[in-house]
């Protein structure tokens, strides 16, 4: 090595950089860079070898040029050469260049990896650290592949220096985050966990980051870390501020490490071991105690560090949710922060309190701070803090303080920030509904809400009022009266007009006795708002008018006059015009009886999850979970454990339920309309066949309150008499999804999919009432020999089904061999104290395991002939019970699961199918021929398969379908 004594100044580099900085224009800069690049190229090309210093200098220049945004396409080799230098500065620049400029160039990667390997196996800690940093900085898959095995060894080796261990832990963390599949801890796990015991605090801090990440993926493997973490934590917490020397930050011992430890503990449920738990509780208490001590320093860093630990501890307490004492203490501590002058602290306190409010132990304690929170809502300068305050109020609300909170929120709404108004409105609406003791209060509140913040009241809110008013006989009169009064204000919000129109149209008669609100007065009041409204509202008002005609025959002439006016009957808007024309005709042609039937009062809405709640969830995402939880607790049912994973699962199930339920409901509500329409009178068909589907397509359409298409018709269907019926089963032979069962209480939807001999079935149990089902349980059983033929596995369902909610159950089915019977599903639950017991056959039939087989005509007949033994054939001749439409037949045959073969049978009228039934034991080939006879309305169905029982069963199943 040449003796270079130029020092590390690298004057050339400094001159170059200052030259570039002094460039007046971009062109000048490019010229300078070109010159420098040419110089470097000639140097690198030069025949005499460069010494390490100049190599380092030029690589540095290249790096600088690259960072200025120019392409660098050479010099990689020189940088790699630097890696093998023995000088720290040269090696460092080499690694820097590689980390910044490396691309997946195969040959270079190999060289780099080689150099890194050398450094890793060297005993020089600085070099090892450099190599580890480079791996972490690049973090590519190739790097992970090459070193994922090596780094854990370095990490746990006894003779590794502390600083190297630190780097190794963080490097491993990086690789794990980039490509988790390549980092396999396996045998290292326990030794990594024991790093928590390391003497060196830095190592512990680094290791704990790694462990937190790893344990969140596979918590079981790292379970042992809990006790270690607890003991480490207790050692830190109990240490005096001077014990840890370097790791004491403004008199707080190892704040970062403490926070990380507390966060790690949040990945696990409370420790079961009493001693460990005791120690942890002691730690948490100490932390809470320390918060009470006078600060050791006035510096903001001191209090920040202290509070960080405190908040982390409180989240742990909340996470455990099992120590009433600690919860209450945490709550009190937060209560102090609520009045702290630091805005951030107030924000954090409110946020943590929101979660505390959902715990049964601390709910009461949180409630004591209601005044402070309300005060915060009113006086806080920062809007985000006010938002948190509103959230907390919402979370701490229960029956006892609902009136106060709702009143406060309503009064705040008038001055609230525009950005949070809509959310506030939703919250008020939900709270008012949930904790309404008497519904007149509820109606008052919502009408107030519309008056104060009409623009922010979404459709869902006023839909909900109407749903509730219609479903509650006792408030209808009051609602009509209040609405009537509210409408008398000179300027009404449009939403108010909508509610008013709907309610007066339905229940106007309840207040008609009073001469001050006689029918004509009501009508005139509504009509005075008519011209100020948008088209949808006007349409709704028109519907209200026709309802008036029914309710009060004396208004008929006036209303007809209005409908007949040009502004209605010739309105440019098609919807309004159509309504005017139809209503006018309806009122003049139809007899009073028909009118009364058509315009009957709306039937009660089926109870389901409040649409407002769904909307809030959509708005807030997972944040709304806490409310949901609280909801559960409110009803006296706590889900124990209280670990975070459980919460998330609930959130997920809550979030996912709406979609399938909407699906099923859509299916259900569409059907009755088409069913009822033809049965109405001839004129009515004309009138309503167009309005009908539109009106009933949504649960509560804004104007769908013509009772000619009652959405409740579906629920009137007689529930199928239970277990004995195969009818149900037959319904599902050719289809996989649909409604399996329905009565007044319960609806069961089914969705299934089959592949080969395996099947998966989703059952959706929908609670149609507003009351929860308790001890809900389902059992799937295979009677008799079916037990050996089918293998059915079910997941248990939650024992509690909320009113209007839906739960899902997954059933896995494996077909072992062919079978005839269907498995039985038994559902038990308590509804209002009465035990309900329903047994059903699950629609699992042998044909579900069909695998379609395509084959040519010659093939088909050859096989047909091979299966000519009499017991292999099953034949049935039967009369058609449905129409003989070709498309329907084809659809049914395809639904059966077989392949429909075209151009096989010489007679084109006939249908020929082929399929293989997949069972675990064997495969049964199956050929089918269906010969319809249109004149006689008869079918002949022939089935041939390699197994006689299969032929017979499929033949029986299929015969019922046509």
């Amino acid at each position, binding site marked *: 090595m040449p003796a270079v004594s130029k020092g590390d100044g690298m004057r050339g580099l400094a001159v170059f950089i200052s030259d570039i900085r002094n460039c007046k224009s971009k062109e000048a800069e490019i010229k300078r860079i070109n010159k420098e690049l040419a110089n470097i*190229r000639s140097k690198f090309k030069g025949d005499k070898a460069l010494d390490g210093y100049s190599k380092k200098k030029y690589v540095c220049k290249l790096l600088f040029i690259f960072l200025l945004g120019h392409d660098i396409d050479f010099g990689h080799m020189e940088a790699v050469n630097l890696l093998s230098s023995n000088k720290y500065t040269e090696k460092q620049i080499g690694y820097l260049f590689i980390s910044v400029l490396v691309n997946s160039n195969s040959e270079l990667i190999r060289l780099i990896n080689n150099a890194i390997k050398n450094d890793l196996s060297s005993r020089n800690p600085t070099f090892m650290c450099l190599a580890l940093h480079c791996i972490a900085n690049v973090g590519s898959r190739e790097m992970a592949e090459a070193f994922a095995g090596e780094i854990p060894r370095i990490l746990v080796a006894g003779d590794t220096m502390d600083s190297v261990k630190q780097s190794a832990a963080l490097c491993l963390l990086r690789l794990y985050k980039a490509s988790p599949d390549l980092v396999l801890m396996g045998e290292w796990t326990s030794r990594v966990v024991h790093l928590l015991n390391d003497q060196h605090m830095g190592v512990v801090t680094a290791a704990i980051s790694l462990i937190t990440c790893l344990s969140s993926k596979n918590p079981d493997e790292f379970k042992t870390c809990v006790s270690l973490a607890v003991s480490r934590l207790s050692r830190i917490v109990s240490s005096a501020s001077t014990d840890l020397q370097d790791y004491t930050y403004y008199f707080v011992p190892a704040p970062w490490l403490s926070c990380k430890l507390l966060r790690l503990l949040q990945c696990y449920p409370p420790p079961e071991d009493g001693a460990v738990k005791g120690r942890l509780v002691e730690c948490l208490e100490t932390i809470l105690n320390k918060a009470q001590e006078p600060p050791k320093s006035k510096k903001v860093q001191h209090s920040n560090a202290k509070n960080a630990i405190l908040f982390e501890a409180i989240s742990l307490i909340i996470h455990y949710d099992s120590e009433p004492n600690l919860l209450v203490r945490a709550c009190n501590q937060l209560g102090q922060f609520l009045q702290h002058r630091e805005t951030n602290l107030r924000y954090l306190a409110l946020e943590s309190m929101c979660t505390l409010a959902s715990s049964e132990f601390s709910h009461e304690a949180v409630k004591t701070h209601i005044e402070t929170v309300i005060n915060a809502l009113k006086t806080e300068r920062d809007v985000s803090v006010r938002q948190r305050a509103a959230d907390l109020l919402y979370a701490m609300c229960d029956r006892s303080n609902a009136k106060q909170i709702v009143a406060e929120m309503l009064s705040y709404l008038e001055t609230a920030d525009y950005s949070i108004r809509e959310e506030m409105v939703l919250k008020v609406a939900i709270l008012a509904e949930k904790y309404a003791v008497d519904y007149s209060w509820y109606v008052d509140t919502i009408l107030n809400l519309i008056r104060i913040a009409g623009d922010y009241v979404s459709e869902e809110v006023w839909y909900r009022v109407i749903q509730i008013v219609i479903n509650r006989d006792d408030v209808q009169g009051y609602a009509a009266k209040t609405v009537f009064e509210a409408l008398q204000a000179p300027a009404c919000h449009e939403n108010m007009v909508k509610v008013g129109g709907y309610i007066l149209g339905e229940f106007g008669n309840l207040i008609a006795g009073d001469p001050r609100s006689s029918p004509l007065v009501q009508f005139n009041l509504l009509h005075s708002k008519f011209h100020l409204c948008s088209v949808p509202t006007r349409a709704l008002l028109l519907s209200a008018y026709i309802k008036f005609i029914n309710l009060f025959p004396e208004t008929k002439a006036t209303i007809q006059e209005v409908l007949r006016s040009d502004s209605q009957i010739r309105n440019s808007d098609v919807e309004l015009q159509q309504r005017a024309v139809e209503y006018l005709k309806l009122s003049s042609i139809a007899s009073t009886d028909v009118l009364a039937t058509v315009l009957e009062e709306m039937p009660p809405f089926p109870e389901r999850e409040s649409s407002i709640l769904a909307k809030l969830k959509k708005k807030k995402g997972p944040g709304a979970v806490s409310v949901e939880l609280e909801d559960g607790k409110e009803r006296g049912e706590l889900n124990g454990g209280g670990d975070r994973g459980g919460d998330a699962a609930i959130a997920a199930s809550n979030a996912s339920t709406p979609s399938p339920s909407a699906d099923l409901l859509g299916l259900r509500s569409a059907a009755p309309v088409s069913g009822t329409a033809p049965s109405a009178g001839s004129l009515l068909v004309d009138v309503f066949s167009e309005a009908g589907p539109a009106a009933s397509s949504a649960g509560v359409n804004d104007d769908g309150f013509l009772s000619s298409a009652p959405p409740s018709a579906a629920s009137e269907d007689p529930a199928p008499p239970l277990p004995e019926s195969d009818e149900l089963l037959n319904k599902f032979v050719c289809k996989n999804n649909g409604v399996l069962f329905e009565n007044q209480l319960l609806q069961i939807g089914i969705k299934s999919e089959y592949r080969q001999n395996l099947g998966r079935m989703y059952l959706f149990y929908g609670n149609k009432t507003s009351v929860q089902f308790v001890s809900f349980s389902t059992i799937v059983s295979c009677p008799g020999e079916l037990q050996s033929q089918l293998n059915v596995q079910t997941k248990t369902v939650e024992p509690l089904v909320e009113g209007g909610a839906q739960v899902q159950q997954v059933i896995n089915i494996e077909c072992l061999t062919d079978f005839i019977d269907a498995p039985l599903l038994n559902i038990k639950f308590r509804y209002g104290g009465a035990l309900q017991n329903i047994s059903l056959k699950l629609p699992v039939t042998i044909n579900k395991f069909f695998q379609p087989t395509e084959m040519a005509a010659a093939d088909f007949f050859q096989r047909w002939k091979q299966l000519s033994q009499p017991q292999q054939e099953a034949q049935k001749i039967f009369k058609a019970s449905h129409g003989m439409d070709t498309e329907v037949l084809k659809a049914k045959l395809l639904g059966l699961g077989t392949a429909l073969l075209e151009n096989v049978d010489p007679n084109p009228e006939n249908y020929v199918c082929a399929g293989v039934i997949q069972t675990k034991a064997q495969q049964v080939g199956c050929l089918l021929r269906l010969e319809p006879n249109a004149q006689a309305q008869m079918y002949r169905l022939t089935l041939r398969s390699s197994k006689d029982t299969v032929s017979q069963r499929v033949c029986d199943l299929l015969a019922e379908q046509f």
Partner: protein
Amino acid sequence: MIGGLFIYNHKGEVLISRVYRDDIGRNAVDAFRVNVIHARQQVRSPVTNIARTSFFHVKRSNIWLAVVTKQNVNAAMVFEFLYKMCDVMASYFGKISEENIKNNFVLIYELLDEILDFGYPQNSETGSLKTFITQQGIKGQTKEEQSQITSQVTGQIGWRREGIKYRRNELFLDVLESVNLLMSPQGQVLSAHVSGRVVMKSYLSGMPECKFGMNDKIIIDKAGKGGVTNEAGKSTSGKQSIAIDDCTFNQCVRLSKFDSERSISFIPPDGEYELMRYRTTKDIILPFRVIPLVREVGRTKLEVKVVIKSNFKPSLLAQKIEVRIPTPLNTSGVQVICMKGKAKYKASENAIVWKIKRMAGMKESQISAEIELLPTNDKKKWARPPISMNFEVPFAPSGLKVRYLKVFESKLNYSDHDVIKWVRYIGRSGIYETRC
């Protein structure tokens, strides 16, 4: 119309800002700086549209001149104005540089007030501007002089004042051409055109009427056919006439006369001005031929040989010849040998620059270079940009010849013969490139 005009230095700082219309706000200044001057990628289009506002810019050395407008203006007019503005500023204080602009900012505002009114360009003739916008401050002007200015600015002949007197009546006429070429390596002309200007300097007394004649094909054909004049046309018919593709004239030229008779007659402004501009594409005399020879020897070496041949009368001398041979981006070393002139590898420009001071016609010279390359990771091939050339020759590559320039002054007692006339031809290279 023009909404405003900004002048920036190379850093994007505003030196001059003159807003003519209300629809241009201060934010337009920043918009141009952010989107054009400081743009990440170099903006090559002279017209930029940012948020429904159009920016037209030209760059003079490190100075950006930008015109802003929200309306749909005639872009050609705007650029013509900008060039004129540059000319005016150059004639007032020389080179347009940051320092000069800073030193003359009062003058520039004064000029801008004069040559643009509510965004409409006004008189931008340097000669006449100089009579009432002076750098010396206000001179004591007599009543007559003042009224003269008024009549000049408002009168029919705005470009010349009355009562000019010279002892010696002189005329200088320069034909300045720039020749542009793109040639294939095999010597095929891919595109070529000449853009030329006729620049005059006139020191004539009174209000003379001038007539300019050149060997334009149409004029000569017309003369030939009509047989009206045979004094000059016939005798020069041996010489070639040229086809002018398009031309524009100084405002002093009577366009009606040009349209009807194709004769260029005018009352000249005093001092220096550009009489006409023209463009030709046919029968161009290419002064130099470049013959490149590039050979790649392996991955690390490149051999380049370039021969230039001068292609004009041996008696003429070309000057300031410069050949620029681009080198690959991974050049690590260059050896050059040339017979004539000096050649050097300029790393900052990634090119070999070969300079020859003088070269006579019908001569040949050659350079050969060995370029060493550094192997790189990139598999990109070198794009081989064309070899470009600069030169100056004492003839017009378009073939344009001045046939006559007659001066008539009826009121004063001097005739055409008394005027001393000087004619000069200069052909320069524009973009003169040969692919290799």
